[in-house]
């Protein structure tokens, strides 16, 4: 049999022909380009046009920030040349002002220490592998704000030089406002969200009124009311700290938004979950803490981070009530000493934008990481 077959057929391939690579024009970089960028004349034109636009934009930014930029100098005069780009010595020289504002320079270690403790705690809290989340969380949310307050403000029992809040400024102030706003608004927001879903009419209506009231006014109005109107309504002589007023305003404002985000999460939970909790005989508190809230919060991570990022950027609004935040410091810096030249204001804004971007981007990446890690179901 075998012989016959071999004899009767001239050639039998005993193995498969290896797959030939596809034509070079359809694979790799060239193939990808042909398919996605140059598949037709119209697309080719669009591609070239877009490339040109990108080139113009990037080369312009590059020229401004690198090629034409001034890197060394001790005053604005150095940046007073023709066709000048960014004036980086301005940032270098005024950096302490941008970070600490009017804070006394001998005391910089105090905000630095506060930053460092916050950084470490945040790292411990944000890294899933490290145990003891409850303790770290309590430290971060309850102990840390108190410690930071006494560290930065000083006075009373601490034996540190008292630094009134008028001297706080720059990035330090921005972070104080943002962190306080984000951290303090979260529990208030959760309570409001639960309250709005409550079956008790009084609780529900109070929460609805609160949320709608605060969501109905722009943050700029809230800050303006807090800083200009509030002192006039209070009894004479009672003087709230200006920063404190702004902080309360920002916190309540953000809480209203957080509440709606969290409520969205609560509504997304299947009704069966609530019923199952009831069937198990859990009371409202247990059911909320063990069943519904954990699931709801997981769902709303993107929303909460979105809120936080938006709040972080909105903190710049405090400069309209005379608090010298990072943006205010960058602006005020142009009135300092010899620092005045055509491109100095732009350089300052670029710097502020970069700092804001770094913080916002970090928050965004971390939230994506958390979402992936907590992705435990429902999306079947």
């Amino acid at each position, binding site marked *: 049999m075998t012989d016959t077959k071999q004899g009767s057929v001239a050639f039998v391939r005993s193995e498969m022909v290896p797959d030939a690579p596809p034509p070079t024009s359809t694979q790799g970089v060239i193939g990808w380009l042909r398919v996605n960028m140059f598949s037709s004349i119209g697309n080719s034109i669009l591609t070239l046009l877009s490339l040109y636009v990108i080139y113009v934009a990037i080369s312009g930014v590059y020229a401004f920030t690198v090629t034409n930029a001034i890197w060394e100098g001790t005053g604005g005069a150095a940046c007073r040349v023709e066709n000048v780009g960014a004036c980086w010595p301005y940032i270098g020289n005024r950096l302490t002002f941008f970070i600490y504002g009017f804070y006394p*320079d001998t005391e910089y270690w105090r905000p630095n220490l506060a930053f460092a403790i916050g950084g470490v705690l945040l790292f411990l809290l944000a890294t899933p592998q490290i145990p003891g989340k409850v303790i770290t969380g309590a430290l971060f949310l309850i102990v840390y704000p108190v410690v930071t307050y006494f560290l930065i403000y000083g006075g009373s029992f601490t034996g540190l030089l008292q630094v009134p809040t*008028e001297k706080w400024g720059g990035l330090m102030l921005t972070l104080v406002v943002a962190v306080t706003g984000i951290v303090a608004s979260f529990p208030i927001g959760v309570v409001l969200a639960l309250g709005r879903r409550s079956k008790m009419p009084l609780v529900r209506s109070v929460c609805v009124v609160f949320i709608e009231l605060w969501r109905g006014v722009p943050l700029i109005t809230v800050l*303006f009311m807090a800083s200009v*109107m509030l002192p006039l309504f209070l009894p004479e002589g009672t003087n709230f700290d200006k920063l404190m007023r702004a902080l309360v305003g920002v916190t309540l404002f953000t809480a209203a938004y957080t509440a709606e985000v969290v409520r969205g999460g609560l509504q997304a939970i299947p009704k069966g979950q609530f019923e199952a909790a009831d069937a198990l005989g859990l009371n409202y508190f247990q059911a909320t803490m063990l069943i519904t809230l954990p699931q709801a919060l997981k769902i709303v991570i993107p929303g909460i981070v979105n809120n936080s990022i938006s709040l972080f950027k909105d903190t710049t609004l405090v*400069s309209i009530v005379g608090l010298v935040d990072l943006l205010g410091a960058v602006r005020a810096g*142009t009135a*300092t000493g010899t620092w*005045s*030249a055509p491109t100095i204001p732009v350089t300052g804004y670029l710097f502020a934008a970069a700092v804001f971007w770094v913080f916002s981007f970090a928050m965004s990446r971390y939230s994506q990481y958390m979402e992936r890690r907590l992705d435990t179901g429902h999306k079947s």
Partner: protein
Amino acid sequence: MQKKLLLAALAATFGMSATASYAASHGAGTLQAVMDKGFVQCGVTGGVRGFSAPDENNNWTGLEVDFCRALASAIFDDADAVRYTPLTSTERFAALSSGEIDVLSRTTTWTMTRDTSLGINFVGVMFYDGQGFMVRKSDGITSALELGGASVCIEAGTTTELNAADYFSSNNIDVNTVVFEEQDEVLKAYEDGRCDVYTTDSSALAAERLNLEDPDAHLILSQIISKEPLGPSVRQGDDAWFNLNRWVYFLLLNAEELGVTQANVDDMLASDNPAIKRLLGVEGTYGDLIGVSNDWGYRIIKALGNYGEMYERHVGPNTEIGIARGVNALWTDGGIQYAPPIR
């Protein structure tokens, strides 16, 4: 500027009721309250070059800041016993009315409306500002009267626009006005050569000039066509505090007139001139009249110098902003700064 005025008036309307009752209950108390807390709370700008701005060491500095420091020197013999509240132009009067600050020293123009209806009193004029003109040196213009046929860059909807129109029509000068919405646009247009003249308040002109590529190629004409007297103000109804503020201001002027400076103040203590003796508290008890120590004059001059020195230090020709003394010179030097005698 009119927009600002409106807002200020609005804020003030709300503030009025509070002001009146504040003055009633705290009537004579600001000086005592300041002494109790140990510092003067001073309302300043968020950063205006020469008037109140952060310096290279991150401390407040400027002509108007120095007024608050002089006040603190008189009360505490410590020019640093001042806390600063940066204020926007809309919130400044409310901050003063509500007692958040003790004195407002924030490039505020003294006008009749403000003086009479906001519940505040103006102490004096630290800087006589007014609308001026900036031109290119290469154009060879030296007086505003030579501006015929020129095009003038102006910010829209401000009193600046009206002032310029009034000035040019009353002097029969024919100009083309080019109007822009924002201050930045005006400067840009001027720089790009779309107009020959840039007009706004002269202190602002001096500051804006520094943002041009070559400031030395531009000239600010000496003509001032409007009155913008900038000065500190205090709450109405507290005469003791008002008197103290006012006489601190007068002392600065008198010291310059009598030639007492920061450098020679110790020698001047031995002067035979009775006016200097009264000024420095060697003779008489003038401090008692305003509720501070009798050597208040010596304290202020020793710490900060006289008005002329302050001016030279912060806005004078040798500073970045470089505004000539002009009308801000003493009356003895051809200016209009004049103070009643300490007697």
